[in-house]
């Protein structure tokens, strides 16, 4: 195990976060606060409680998930895309470091960043709405699993993308819509029956449902199913990453 290398990459990535503090931490916090003001306070006051939870509080888990998904994918995809783009990846590929160690370092750093963002948003939310967390350990588990899974997905995108456009494409056209339509702002029960069924094909529904359950004890789908699906995505992402390294896809000729 090359601990020094893991530490070097992790430290390098975290240093990048510190350098771009405004972009990586402050801007997601500001944009989420705007959601609270608009949806939670302004519009939310006219929306009735959902399962006994005020609308302002109801959207907190969804908003944290929304940031978690977009931050994880963009952090991890950029972290591995940029060395490829700049050519500095030669050093990584010629270093005495295993693929598993590369993934642990990059995905670990990206997940750490998005978890920090998630926790800051959570702290910010308490300023706007009274909040209680029913199952804090489960909340952390879902937070970490989701951050890791979507950082892995980001890593895959960063390797697949061969230009900046593609790098933005997946987060913009897939991750954000799925997160918005996955019940960030509403309960699935509020949809017409047909759309309730369609929504179940959206993987993000399970993540948000489980995460919301850890806050309020209410969920659209069962917690076991949420956890199971979250783990399933994690393993699919791991399998794709393993395939990438096995074949050297876009990394080695």
């Amino acid at each position, binding site marked *: 195990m*090359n601990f*020094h*290398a893991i*530490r*070097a*990459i992790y*430290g*390098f990535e975290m*240093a*990048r976060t510190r*350098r771009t503090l405004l972009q990586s931490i402050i801007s997601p916090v500001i944009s989420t606060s705007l959601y609270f003001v608009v949806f939670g306070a302004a519009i939310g006051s006219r929306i009735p409680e959902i399962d006994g939870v005020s609308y302002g509080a109801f959207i907190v888990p969804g908003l944290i998930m929304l940031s978690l998904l977009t931050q994880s994918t963009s952090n991890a995809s950029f972290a591995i895309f940029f060395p490829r783009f*700049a*050519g*500095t990846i*030669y*050093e*990584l*590929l*010629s*270093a*005495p*470091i*295993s693929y598993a160690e590369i993934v642990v370092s990059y995905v670990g750093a990206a997940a750490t960043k998005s978890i920090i963002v998630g926790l800051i948003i959570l702290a910010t939310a308490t300023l706007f709405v009274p909040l209680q967390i029913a199952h804090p350990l489960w909340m952390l588990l879902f937070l970490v699993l989701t951050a890791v899974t979507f950082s892995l997905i980001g890593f895959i995108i960063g390797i697949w993308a061969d230009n900046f456009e593609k790098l933005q494409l997946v987060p913009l056209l897939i991750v954000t819509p799925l997160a918005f339509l996955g019940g960030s702002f509403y309960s699935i029960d509020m949809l017409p029956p047909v759309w309730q069924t369609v929504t179940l094909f959206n993987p993000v529904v399970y993540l948000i449902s489980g995460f919301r359950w850890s806050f309020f004890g209410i969920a659209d789908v069962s917690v076991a199913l949420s956890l199971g699906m979250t783990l399933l995505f994690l393993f699919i992402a791991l399998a794709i990453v393993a395939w990438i390294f096995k074949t*050297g896809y876009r990394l*080695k*000729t």
Partner: protein
Amino acid sequence: MKRLSMTTSLTRKDPNTMCGNDLKLFVRRRAANRAGSAIFDRMQVIISVSNLSKSYASGFEALSNVTLDIRRGEIFALLGPNGAGKTTLISTICGLVRPSTGRVTVGGHDIITDFRAARALIGLVPQELTTDSFESVWATVSFSRGLFGKPPDPAHIEKVLKSLSLWDKRKSRIMTLSGGMKRRVLIAKALSHEPRILFLDEPTAGVDVELRQDMWALVRDLRETGVTIILTTHYIEEAEEMADRIGVISKGRLILVEDKVELMRKLGKKQLALHLDQRLEQIPAALAHYGLVLSDDGHELIYTYDAKKEHAGILALLRGLDEAGIAFRDLNTSQSSLEDIFVSLVKEEQ
């Protein structure tokens, strides 16, 4: 056969006639010699490339059955035209390109099954100026050291930066540096983890004279500390100046590996130019077999000869000239440069 064994038994001690202690000593020495020479052979070779080929899905064969041993502590220059496979060969040894067939060991470690041990020995300076932009020089060089599995050592990083005249720039962002400085940063990164082998891929391409000379001095200093250096270059004078041995690669094939001096001696044609006292109308028949060339003005005779046979040839020619009554007032010899050799080799191959 019999006589041979008798002489050896006379010079050495015959084991059959030895007493107990002698015999033990003899056996031990012989074992030590054998083990010693095996170890010596192993130690001599630091990189062993055998039957290495690399072909791409398109069918293009970048490397074709390359076999090469790099000796510990030498400076090896890999010459070849653009696209010959120099970078592919280096990239394969360093783990950037997957070999199609063949095997490579570095310090006795297979580059695939034992890649950690193999890669830890290597520092690579790539051809392109691929550096980070926003990091400081210090941070990027320290990063490389960690990446190669070494614990932080600020004193070593300081030494490397100072040796490359980068110390004053250690806090500068890399993007603010000139091209030459970036090249130095890449070298510092490669040296950050104290490699035993340094690959320099076109180290002096697009580099000014001062930096080139600095680089040469650095390479010599590194060799003093026992680092093996493999460099690729277009500049023949660089290989001529630096290398102990030279490999020529063309179209993915290693067409020649030779000691530099030996190569120059073997393939180097020498020319002897004689400036004649008086104009010569034609070459006397007695000297015809030398293949002399007479200049248009008749004042210069040029004799092209094989460097290996220089003594006999020149002496006989001079004697022949004397006998023919041709006097000369000056002479000079010139040897073909590595560039001439290289061009003729590659032409032959094509």
